């Protein structure tokens, strides 16, 4: 009896030791991430990779079809068009978004009254920008007899059938994206605050003018922040979906058929899960590729304080 007691207490201390060991506690707290990573990331990704080479349809079964999907993809003109549309969108929207964000942040760093209010004003479109409500309204602004056209007519210009023409359909979507420069503005504002005032003072003593100060001091000091914003906005740009889905549905004639929209349609509207999986992997590879390129070239134009 006595013997048994000591045995259990030894076991108990062993158990106590185990659950209080650094490893056990660590895994205990990291558990949500580990389990989540396994079941909502790793397993789905492995499945998706496999499905990419099958003819899986929603509700059907997957049969391995080798490179059939790849062949289909290479002959899919609509797919290549959707990549073109997406890249065009990123190229037109991201630089303007960053430029506006930086410009407004720069203007609003001055010690003037009402800066906090102004910043909220400029941040508002971003704050609500993710909402369907705003997308619906934006679509209405650019309608045939919408506010934008009425305004153009007041200026003596002709109204544009924005969503009806190949060349113009993407413009409202780009403008809406540029309109939402708020988050990069706030990050830029924080970056501007970090630049030591001594730099500016030194430049002033050397007699530099405002533009020289901006080019020689502000921009280089801010370059890591620019890189960060550029990366985040580019990645987000590649995944643009909702605006096109709501405003244009991809039309006219695929002029706004973003890749994310095309993938969605293949997967959920046309039930081609296997083929859509392959396209989603191409999207992932594209994003990775662009990220790597931005990183590689960034070494030439970003400066860090300790360089």
């Amino acid at each position: 009896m006595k013997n048994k007691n000591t045995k259990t207490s030894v076991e108990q201390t062993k158990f106590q030791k185990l659950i209080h060991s650094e490893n056990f506690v660590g895994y205990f707290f990291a558990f949500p991430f580990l389990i989540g990573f396994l079941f909502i990331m790793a397993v789905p990704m492995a499945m998706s990779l496999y499905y990419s080479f099958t003819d899986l349809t929603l509700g059907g079964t997957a049969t391995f079809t080798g490179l059939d999907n790849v062949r289909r993809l290479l002959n899919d003109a609509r797919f290549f068009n959707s990549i073109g549309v997406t890249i065009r969108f990123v190229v037109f929207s991201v630089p303007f978004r960053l430029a506006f964000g930086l410009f407004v942040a720069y203007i609003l760093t001055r010690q003037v009254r009402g800066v906090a209010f102004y910043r909220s004003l400029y941040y508002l479109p971003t704050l609500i920008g993710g909402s369907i409500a705003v997308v619906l309204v934006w679509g209405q602004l650019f309608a045939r007899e919408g506010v934008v056209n009425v305004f153009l007519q007041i200026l003596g210009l002709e109204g544009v059938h924005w969503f009806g023409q190949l060349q113009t359909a993407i413009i409202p979507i780009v403008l809406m994206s540029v309109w939402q420069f708020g988050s990069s503005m706030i990050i830029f504002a924080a970056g501007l605050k970090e630049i030591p005032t001594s730099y500016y003072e030194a430049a002033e003593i050397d007699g530099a003018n405002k533009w020289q100060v901006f080019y020689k001091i502000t921009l280089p000091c801010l370059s890591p922040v620019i890189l960060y914003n550029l990366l985040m906005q580019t990645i987000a740009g590649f995944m643009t979906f909702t605006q096109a889905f709501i405003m244009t549905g991809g039309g006219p004639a695929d002029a706004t058929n973003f890749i994310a929209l095309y993938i969605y349609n293949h997967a959920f509207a046309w039930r081609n899960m296997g083929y859509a999986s392959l396209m989603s992997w191409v999207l992932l590879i594209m994003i990775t590729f662009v990220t790597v390129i931005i990183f590689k070239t960034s070494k030439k134009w970003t400066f860090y304080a300790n360089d």
Partner: protein
Amino acid sequence: MVGKTTKKFMYHFLVLAFGFVMIYPVLWMISGSLKTNLEIATGSLSLIPQYWQWENFANGWRGFAGIGFDVFFRNSFFVATLSTIGTVLSSSVVAYAFSRLRFKGRKLYFGIMLSTMMIPAQVIMIPQFLIFHRLGLVGTFVPLILPSFFGHPFFVFLMMQFMVSIPKELDEAAIIDGCSKYSVFFRIIFPLLAPALVTSAIIQFYWAWDDFMGPLIYLTDPNTYTVSLALRMFADTASITDFGAMFAMSTLSLLPVFIVFLIFNKRLVEGINTSGLKG
């Protein structure tokens, strides 16, 4: 010579004028919620309705096919609240593991977590859907809520940044006083983390409130529709769109976002700064 006051005046004037252009679409939507359909459809630039159509709100609130917006709002609040609670709690736990505990493979897991931030939703969306489909959960709220209980990398990162500012001496003192590593988290770290928890909660609430693709894929029964899905039905119906009602419900759908912003303005800005989140 241009006087200093003139310059100052010009500055404020330009900043305000441009700011007005920025928020014009929002103001136009709000005023549109009180305009007649005709006035909206003909693109009236005015921000003051010609005839005040308060019934737009009543018409919109009635919803579609006998399902009112009270149902859609309730669904949205339910999903957004639960996913916010899940995200905040799970992210804080994971952040504690990565920032304070030295367990095997910590660096590797942390690297994996950061790299998952780059993976486009489209890649996992399809297989995830198939898994939930197999489990018979498509059409329920589960696929919209469950994934938020595994820690979101953005918020884990944000909370880790914040934890750096909590002195390690506090943990050590507590351990000397007989606290375990578990109670260090629950009694010290978690309460001190409150500002970061609030920031994360706001941002996640926004994301969940605005989420469109999730509900679009998973919700099949109009009784379970969230507000964002219901709003789309205004634009989707083949019949003539009731613009006034659409704008009225759009305005209402933004109300929670505005209110939270007015209360937590500063917290939110800090959060975007520390983590560089897309707001």
